[in-house]
């Protein structure tokens, strides 16, 4: 009898890779610091997907835990990052990263 194969882990991992890459591209191209940051969050998120996938298919709990910590860290980073954006906006009236180049060379 034909059995539908279970979803292979590779697919999840490829999806994670796609999301990660999109995140990287976004982080590289978007001008708005907040959007850049969101793209980075996307990257972290895709890593989490990888972790969970591995965890699932290796039958090990560590990946889940790691993902948990990543989320916590992402939250912390978000708090600090947004505070920095606020501060930046106050001092520069913009959060376009391609206008922030006082420091160079």
């Amino acid at each position, binding site marked *: 009898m034909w059995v539908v194969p279970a979803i292979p882990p590779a697919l999840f991992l490829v999806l994670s890779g796609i999301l990660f890459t999109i*995140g990287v591209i976004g982080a590289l191209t978007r001008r708005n*610091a907040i959007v850049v940051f969101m793209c980075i969050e996307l990257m972290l998120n895709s*890593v989490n997907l*990888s972790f969970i996938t591995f965890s699932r298919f290796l039958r090990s709990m560590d990946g889940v835990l790691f993902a948990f910590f990543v989320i916590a860290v992402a939250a912390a980073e978000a708090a600090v990052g947004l505070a920095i954006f606020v501060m930046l906006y106050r001092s520069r009236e913009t959060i376009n990263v391609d206008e922030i180049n006082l420091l160079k060379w």
Partner: protein
Amino acid sequence: MKLPEIDLCLIAPEIIVAAFGFFVLLVDVFFSKRENKAYLGWISLVGIFFAGALAVTQAGSVKSGFEGMFISDGYALFFRITFLIIAFLTVLISMGYTQREGIAFGEYYALILFATLGMMLMAAGTHLVIIFLGLETMSISIYILAGMMREDKRSVEAALKYFLLGAFATGFLLYGIALIYGATGSLYLKDVASYIASKNLLRNPMLLMSLVFLTIGFGFKIASVPFHMWTPDVYEGAPTSITAFMATGVKAAGFSALVRVFFSALPGFRPDWTSIMWLIAVATMTVGNIVAISQSNIKRMLAYSSIAHAGYILVAFVAGNDLGVSGILFYLMAYAFMNIGAFTCVILLGKKGEENTLIRDYAGIGFKYPLLSAAMTIFLLSMAGIPPLGGFMAKFYVFSAAVKEKFYWLAILGVLNSAVSVYYYLRVTVLMYFREPEREITGLQFSPAAVAALVLAVIGTLYMGIFPSNVLSFAQKSIAGLM
């Protein structure tokens, strides 16, 4: 369900540091009206001192705890002491500086303590989670510290850049960890290594890819080319005391984790990473040194120089023998003294509303502030690798490790680079001693704490240059069992 064994003695120094961090926060709340926050600095110093004392008592024993996630071995001990020294000096130079720049918040000291905690965890973690969390604790604290001078556009910009790129790099690091996890099913460094060895996973593409990502992630922290580009901007913009902290502490922590991960978990990949790191080391040294030549801001110049120093340390990393790794430890400690010392001089030469961070500003101070200039000269020469200063001995070990492994060209490129570096270090001394001042710098106020830091840094630099034996044998003992 088995409750975990909790051995608090094992993490006693970390606990002390964390506790004092909270204590400082608390005290600050109760005495929030006080303008002068220097007392918080003193409290921090006490904490750091205690932590250090506790760390020293652990010397000699190797104990693992918390489900094997944390280890108190010689390696951890060496780095703990290094970080605590860095923190100690940073706090010392901060007390006057924060007051002057209006960033004297209680949180400032607390964050330094927390960052130190993060660093210590990075060095002592044997589980990738600990290393990751330590790294984040450190990084987030420093994102904040870098942006402390909220009124200063540069400081804010530095914080932004550091934050965005730091988070970006974290993404890569995490992906690397995920791939390791996927390939080996473990996050314990030792287990990773043994699994790789047992299953012969040396050609596993996932692990190779993770090697790439880890290189990016750690390369960012240690500021190696091409992941270095944030360094000059952030070092320039951040408050000077934090720059000193970053340049020494973060770099040291980055190396501590890099070495731990690569040598404990991925030793089998040495042939793979060697040539990449070779290239990175050369590029890092060269770019750092060459670009430093044309800088006009001393903080920026020191930033490039710190990139170059990362390159030198990578030379030892490439060599990868016990000589090299102990050389890395020695180098980081020596670098801590000389670099913080140099930044202390930068701080001392500024005053409120007048940072005097242009190299031009150093013209003619040589005979006006003779001791300050002499100290600066010592630090610069030490960084240039002139004996008998700590920097020389550090380079000596690093290059000897390379020579031992027959990386002759690497060593030659390294020493040639250090000859080039002499030029820009000398340029500062040229200005200090050989030129007449363009404008008078007067009314400098030397905070006693910063002066104390300066003295300590001088002593440290000289000590490590003239009597390197003790520190070196300490470093050599420290790496036992690492590899």
